[in-house]
């Protein structure tokens, strides 16, 4: 069995599971944010439930509309806050206390190797970076999980992505995923799992692995996963004292197919507007003028990302033709970035810095785009209308490309900066 099959077999108590089999699995953690959570709060009352299956295994994290931009959003917050208080949930993260739900889940130690986690947000796939099986579900199913602590899954086929080679300076996990997306296509892994493996992945930091797994849903996948190693164990132990049992695939594990990628000489990759698989090397884009650059999100809002961007921006100014919005993925990252002087670097460069949250990613708050505007974003999704008006254009790229582009006001390869 591969790692996904191993985890699902353990969680369902089945000795052996195979792709296509439907299993009833025990859930280790369940997470909601305010956008999906207010529906869970409503449904929970509608069905007459009184308590969650285990309040220590539930987290409620406000992150999309932070702080509340409208009275309507404030009402959503109030419903979710009351729900968390009524149920006496210790893992409740209010405005200013957490950040993007996925980063909070990871850094507060809720994510552990070998466990099964569901979240009412599609980017729940992120946690596979720590060797967990994690996937996004809707609010109705989440209500059921909150009550029963169980959920059915169809065991997915898994595509193995074997990565070799060394990244050039300024190139990393985001570029690798976009390259994979170009190969697989935006619906090419629907209902499937992606397992990232090989020496390059082994050499990657936990932060970079989170970026990689975060985007698995963008090619339709149910899960993105990296087998746990010493780095994983060390990271998780620094975040929680709870015991855990890492699981790895067998040496004769079966996969749907293997995709081999070599990153030697890979240039920075950009997903062009409309689809994540519409990918080109940065040098082939031509002259793309930018109205906004956004650095942040569960994809690229971690300290490693902010550091890489600040190293390019330090002592320089955001080009007057454009604007830069920076949003750390969590309160902890915000504080870390302050202590490292990164917030000062961004502010002195002329960036707008907002509180830890989803920020501009989903088109509802903190940097919404007007019709006809163009944005380069370090986020994960560039659907039409994603970041604001349907006539706005969104390009996806890495934090280093974002920082270089902020200096020139057009999409720029950081290698071409003087």
């Amino acid at each position, binding site marked *: 069995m591969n790692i996904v099959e191993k985890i699902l077999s353990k969680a369902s108590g089945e000795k052996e599971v195979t792709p296509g089999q439907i299993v009833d699995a025990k859930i280790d953690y369940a997470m909601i944010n305010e*956008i*999906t959570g*207010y*529906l869970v709060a409503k*449904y929970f009352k*509608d*069905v*007459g*439930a009184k308590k969650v299956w285990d309040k220590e295994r539930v987290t409620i994290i406000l992150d*999309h*509309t932070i702080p509340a931009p*409208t009275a*309507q*959003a404030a*009402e*959503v917050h109030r419903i979710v806050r009351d729900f968390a208080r009524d149920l006496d949930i210790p893992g409740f993260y209010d405005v200013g206390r957490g950040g993007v739900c996925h980063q909070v889940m990871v850094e507060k130690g809720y994510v552990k190797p070998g466990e099964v986690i569901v*979240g*009412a*947000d*599609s980017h*729940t796939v992120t946690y596979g970076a720590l060797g967990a099986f994690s996937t*996004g*579900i*809707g*609010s*109705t*199913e989440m*209500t*059921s999980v909150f*009550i029963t602590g169980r959920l059915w899954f169809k065991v997915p086929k898994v595509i193995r992505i074997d990565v070799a080679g060394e990244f050039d300076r300024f190139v990393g996990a985001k570029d690798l995923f976009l390259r994979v997306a170009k190969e697989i296509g*935006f*619906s090419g892994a*629907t*209902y499937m799992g992606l397992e990232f493996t090989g020496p390059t992945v082994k050499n990657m930091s936990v932060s970079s692995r989170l970026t990689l797994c975060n985007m698995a*849903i963008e090619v*339709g996948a*149910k899960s993105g996963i990296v087998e746990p190693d010493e780095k994983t164990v060390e990271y998780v132990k620094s975040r929680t004292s709870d015991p855990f049992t890492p699981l790895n695939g067998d040496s004769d594990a079966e996969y749907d197919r293997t995709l081999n990628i070599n990153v030697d000489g890979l240039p920075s990759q950009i997903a062009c507007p409309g*689809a994540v698989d519409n990918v080109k090397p940065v040098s082939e884009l031509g002259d793309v003028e930018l109205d906004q650059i956004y650095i942040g999100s569960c994809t690229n809002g971690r300290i490693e990302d902010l550091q890489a961007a600040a190293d390019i921006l330090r002592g320089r100014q955001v080009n007057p033709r454009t604007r830069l919005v920076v949003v750390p993925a969590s309160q902890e990252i915000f504080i870390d970035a302050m202590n490292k002087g990164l917030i000062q670097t961004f502010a002195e460069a002329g960036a707008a810095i907002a509180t830890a949250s989803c920020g501009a990613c*989903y*088109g*509802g708050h903190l940097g*919404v785009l007007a019709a006809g505007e163009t944005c380069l974003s370090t986020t994960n*999704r560039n*659907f*039409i*209308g*994603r970041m604001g008006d*349907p006539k706005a254009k969104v390009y996806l790229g890495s934090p280093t490309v974002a920082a270089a582009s902020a200096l020139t006001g057009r999409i720029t390869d950081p290698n071409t900066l003087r």
Partner: protein
Amino acid sequence: MKVEAKALKYGDNINTDIIIPGKYLVIMDEEELGRHAMEGIDPVFSGKSRDGIVLVVGDNFGSGSSREQAPIALKNANVKCIVAKSFARIFYRNAINLGLPVLECSDLWSEVIEGDILTVSLEDGLIENGRIRRTFKAQPLPPFILDIIQSGGLLNKLKQSLK
């Protein structure tokens, strides 16, 4: 369980940001969500769907977000059933859990024009297009999924189990 209604037809890769854009996610009134359904591709969709429709779409319908507001908006726009060439995973589960029937059929799409009356039989996955007098076969839903839809969604089943 049979559904009979006029068809409305759209293409491939209709994602959740098209079905219900992010700015509407804090709307708690389900009927209002319904008025914004599919706004990203057809601003007058809810007017066309008012009397009840079968939504016929291409590949990868509902890709992207886990937002249940997407199937809620479609249900409240009076979409009675969705027949797609294929669905994205989370949307597919969400629709079923809300009691909104979803069928995968790759042959139907090219044989439907807007306004055709379609008769969908969920038990056997058969879809009849009266205009051309042809019947198409979709993958029938497994019994436990059909049971969720026939109960009117997962919440109704949960309610029963909590009694």
